């Protein structure tokens, strides 16, 4: 178990069910990301549904890297990136690289953003999401060796920015309650 409790005090005995509880709460960020990505692949018949997958992946990785980096370590970001590449029919490695970059940016901006409110985090994420969508576009062009219209990239960026609050507000609630290993 990666979560080693070293605080002083009296706590319940470490039984199997408690270990499972801690593990479930600890793995909540990665699991919820993968489940949400899977849901975007369901036959919903929404116009431009394909853009939802990168948008959801970017929002989730940004949020959890910012608020719970211990529960979303780089290897898990790598795995989520591989799923993004496979489900999104991107050339292998494009989603992986982009999500690792978003993860790195979140870790770097963690300090300054920790003192700011939701609005600031959203504005900064707007910049990060735009950069990520452009990065995907450029990498796809480089790897397929072909010029592509920038419109899908702009659409992904706008979609990502606009669905961020829809995901971040429930995530913030979950982070304090069911996703918190300290409450196991």
């Amino acid at each position, binding site marked *: 178990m990666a979560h080693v409790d070293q605080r002083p005090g009296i706590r319940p005995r470490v039984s199997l069910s408690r270990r499972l509880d801690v593990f479930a709460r600890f793995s909540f960020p990665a699991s919820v990301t993968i489940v949400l990505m899977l849901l975007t692949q369901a036959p919903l018949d929404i116009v431009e549904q394909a853009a939802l997958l990168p948008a959801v992946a970017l929002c989730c990785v940004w949020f959890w890297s910012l608020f719970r980096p211990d529960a979303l370590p780089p290897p898990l970001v790598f795995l989520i990136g591989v799923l993004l590449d496979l489900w999104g*029919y991107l050339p*292998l490695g494009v989603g992986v690289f982009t999500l690792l970059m978003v993860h790195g940016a979140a870790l770097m901006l963690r300090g300054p953003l920790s003192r700011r409110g939701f609005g600031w985090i959203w504005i900064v994420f707007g910049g990060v999401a735009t950069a990520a969508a452009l990065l995907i576009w450029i990498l796809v062009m480089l790897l397929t060796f072909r010029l592509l219209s920038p419109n899908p990239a702009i659409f992904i960026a706008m979609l990502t920015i606009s669905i961020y609050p829809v995901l971040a507000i429930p995530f913030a609630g979950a982070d304090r309650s069911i996703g918190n290993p300290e409450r196991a």
Partner: protein
Amino acid sequence: MIRMSIQARQALARLSLPVLIVASFGLMLLGKADTLLAERARTALADGLAPIYAALATPLGQIRAAISETAVLWDMRTENDRLRAENAQLRRWQAIALALDAENQRLKASLSWIPEPDASFVTARVVAGAGGVYAKAVLLSVGPNHGIRKGEIAVDERGLVGRVTEVGVRTARVLLITDLNSRIPVILESSRAHAILIGTNGMWPRLQYWPEGVVPQEGERVVTSAEANAFPANLPIGTVHYTGSGVPDVEPAAMLQQLEVVRIFDYGLTGVAGMTAPERPTPGRH
């Protein structure tokens, strides 16, 4: 968990991000070197998830049906009037078609025409969009022992949809004619000129490489050409439509935005390299 000193663990944690970024470049190279790798991984993933998509399809379909039901009830009267008019027009067309068909049969009989073999087909349900932002494709759910092979042709009730590009155990992926990688030899129906239909990832594919002296006419029908032996001749694709910038696009006849069921035809064509030879007889065909 392996026991390590705190310093070693911290160093490892700090190193993992750069190492994985380098690994992602390695993955890009690997994807370029072995294109089949990604294809196989995707097919395996889709095979695993196909039952989930199929299970989700029923409730989602009910919700969609309820929504469209209200819309239909709303303007049933005008829709009825429109359908009556269209029905009358179609009856006239049917009479013409029957007369032409009879004449065609007579002419073929007098010419000792060699009839083309009937193509066998299987029908499959579209379970999910299998395209990304930079690819246009759909995923079909097919039973085991389906006998579908790469390169077979997908058609809905109105026209050409695309071609099978990947086949798994329970799924098949159809690359749509709108995909960036789609190239289809076509014939413009009234001028009989050859051209190539090129996907652009947009809603409508684009016509290119028609011969000099021929101009695709607005509203002209576009059908497949048997050239290169990749498609049978005369499958309907769509109609020519000029965009604002004066480029002839083709409005597909098939409803590519809302595909539900497609037929996969096996014309026994071998025109495209990389198609695998049949290894076993194909059960379940009509």
